[in-house]
């Protein structure tokens, strides 16, 4: 069967020294895993990956998959042909018919001869292909510096032809930096935090605290939707839903009113740590940005950090809300995040929350709540959902 070919460019990985092989292997694995339904196969040639898929692979899905795979800086649909100038010319005609340039503007031929045994030089290849383009699009002019369109021809073991490439998301392949647990809420921030952290190679699973009936099942559906939207960037993700109503009620009943949010966050950290350790994750990622709300002051963060011995990563710490919203829109989570299903009921939110807790005092207060039993109970009753690298929900194997 004919296959579909994509050329993939790696970015930062190519700068890696001794570990380069590891990074590349992981990237190849991540891409293949994502597109396994079309029997993805990858061949590597000098700083390029060639992805081969079944002919019936859906272009849009492939496009989405590659543009959400960290480690890729660019990709393009490519065409392979024999190492023969006549074959190249006839393939170029075919490609330009499938991906036509516009009638107006400028173009450039970018020919590279990696295989020096090929009889024509890069310049000569460019010249004869420029004639072909001219003939097909007589209005186009040549511009070598700022062309509107570029036709790439690479003469390697085989000849590869492709037009302009798409930008990849950059970053490093997920799972090259270890595993972490994300505290996912229904808000705008945490999905963005997930993607920021995953971009540096973290493999991320998500934890959501559900307080039914104080929060609705629509809020849970919203969080599941968010998990499915970020799953492609995370190379698939698990969503752990912790039923925390009893825990929240205990906190509301026993803690000082102005400290309820703080105590809740402390118990979330503790719970996340327990789940993380069980699932072999070594860090907790949150969507907190410094001073955005009362629980995000230095003192409050310092207190909640003290509840876990795991590293707490806050990728958004220095971002403004506007920057966060911009990214949320780019990754497509914004519209879901702003649906009006609250992830925390007003009755658990104090009117005047403490902003500068005394770490030691608050620790004592927290200990007096004796949350362990509630936390254990909640983890026992926890539900797990799995979203595959294409963002589809699959039955979870736990």
């Amino acid at each position: 069967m004919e296959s579909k070919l994509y050329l993939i460019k790696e970015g930062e990985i190519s700068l890696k020294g001794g570990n380069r092989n590891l990074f590349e292997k992981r990237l190849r694995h991540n891409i293949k895993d994502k597109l396994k339904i079309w029997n993805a196969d990858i061949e590597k040639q000098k700083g390029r990956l060639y992805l081969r898929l079944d002919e019936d692979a859906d272009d849009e899905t492939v496009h989405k998959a590659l543009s959400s795979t960290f480690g890729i800086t660019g990709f393009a649909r490519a065409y392979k042909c024999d190492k023969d100038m006549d074959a190249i010319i006839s393939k170029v005609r075919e490609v330009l018919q499938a991906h036509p340039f516009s009638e107006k503007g400028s173009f450039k031929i970018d020919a590279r001869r990696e295989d020096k045994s090929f009889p024509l030089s890069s310049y000569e290849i460019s010249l004869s292909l420029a004639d072909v383009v001219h003939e097909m699009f007589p209005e186009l002019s040549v511009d070598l510096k700022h062309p509107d369109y570029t036709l790439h021809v690479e003469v390697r073991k085989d000849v590869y032809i492709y037009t302009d490439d798409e930008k990849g998301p950059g970053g490093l392949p997920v799972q090259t930096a270890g595993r972490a647990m994300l505290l996912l809420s229904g808000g705008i921030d945490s999905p963005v935090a997930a993607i920021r952290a995953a971009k540096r190679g973290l493999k991320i699973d998500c934890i959501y605290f559900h307080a039914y009936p104080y929060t609705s099942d629509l809020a849970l559906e919203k969080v599941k939707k968010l998990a499915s939207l970020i799953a492609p960037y995370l190379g698939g993700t698990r969503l752990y839903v912790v039923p925390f109503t009893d825990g929240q009620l205990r906190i509301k009943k026993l803690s000082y009113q102005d400290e309820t949010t703080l105590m809740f966050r402390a118990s979330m950290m503790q719970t996340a740590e327990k789940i993380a350790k069980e699932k072999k994750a070594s860090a907790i990622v949150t969507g907190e940005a410094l001073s955005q709300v009362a629980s995000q002051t230095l003192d409050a963060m310092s207190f909640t950090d003290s509840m876990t011995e795991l590293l707490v990563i806050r990728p958004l710490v220095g971002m403004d809300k506007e920057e966060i919203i911009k990214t949320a829109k780019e990754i497509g989570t914004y519209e879901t995040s702003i649906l009006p299903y609250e992830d925390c009921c007003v009755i658990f939110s104090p009117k005047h929350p403490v902003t500068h807790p005394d770490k030691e005092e608050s620790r004592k207060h927290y200990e007096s709540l004796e949350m362990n039993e509630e936390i254990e109970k909640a983890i026992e009753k926890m539900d797990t959902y799995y979203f595959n690298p294409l963002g589809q929900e699959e039955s979870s194997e736990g």
Partner: protein
Amino acid sequence: MLNYFDYAATSPMSPRAISSFVKCAESYPFNPSSIHKGGLKAHKKLDETRERTASILRIKPEQVVFTSGATEAINIVFSSLLWHKTPGKVIISRIEHDAVRSFIPLLKEKGWKVAMLKAKRGFVDPEDVKRELTEDTRLVAVMNVNNVNGAIQDTHKIAAVIREFEKSIKHKIIFFSDSVQALAKTGLDLDGSGVDAASFSAHKISGPRGVGMLYIRNKNLIRPLSAAGGQESAIRGGTENLAGIVSFSEALEEAYENRDEKEKRIITLSERIKDELSALGLEINSEGLTSPYIINVSSPLPSEVFSRMLDDKGYAISSGSACSNNAKKGENIIEAMGYGNRRAESSVRISLSDYTEEGEVDGLINAIKEIIHGI
């Protein structure tokens, strides 16, 4: 038992309404505007139904305009204002249904002045109407029975104030009263009250959805945006939903049978609910002269949470507002009645119908007791 307490939202069709719908759909598969025998037969049925409806409501057949629902009836009245060459003033109570309030932006955009009447505890003071009336006033809209807390307006007095003022100006002022929650219940007196136009909906009285009615005292008061095919005296064009209209009329007749007895029973149930919930510490937001079919209360929990808890126990009620930290879109009606933000955010509506059974009420009260004792 249905354990359903959201009749003010919609009500299941009664067996009589269903059977009359089916019978009519089978027997009259014709367009009442057609001139063949079938069409004439359908037209006759429509005329008869209009007469029957008018007689139940003690109004004239020509005052009945069948519509697709109350919203359409409201739309006909409000959009007719746009024919005026110069924009005037409308006076609207702050506690109107969205179907009415949603016209405010359009009217303002077209240069109309919109005065909002306050309605403490749900009641509009006729004196406030009097104060707002001006020479360029074209319409006053005050609903008959409020859908959120059941407050029954003194439409007689409001009409009297308007009629008195009219003597000093050259044109008529339309007094429109959305009367969806009054139909076949307390408080409706179309002919006696002096209301000029009123909207009704069939599905709130165990009739079908997609059918409603506009009462219009004098058809010259209103000029619809379009007469379309000229049906319903050119006030509501479009082929008539004959089976729906017949079924609506049947539901209406059924609802008016033994009216007083039915209402007496509901008053007893309603008073009991109020007393018991009050004893549990819930605040009653239906005070004074209110419909026994609608009871609004505030619990210690956010509306949405409280109704979700009741739903899990098998009881359907209505929550006015969401459990939200964010600012609400628009104004909460309970808040507009002066009950304060906290009370508004924890308010829920329990609504009854003539089909509500005593056993259901017992169950509801017990379920609420369990919730309140559990927090």
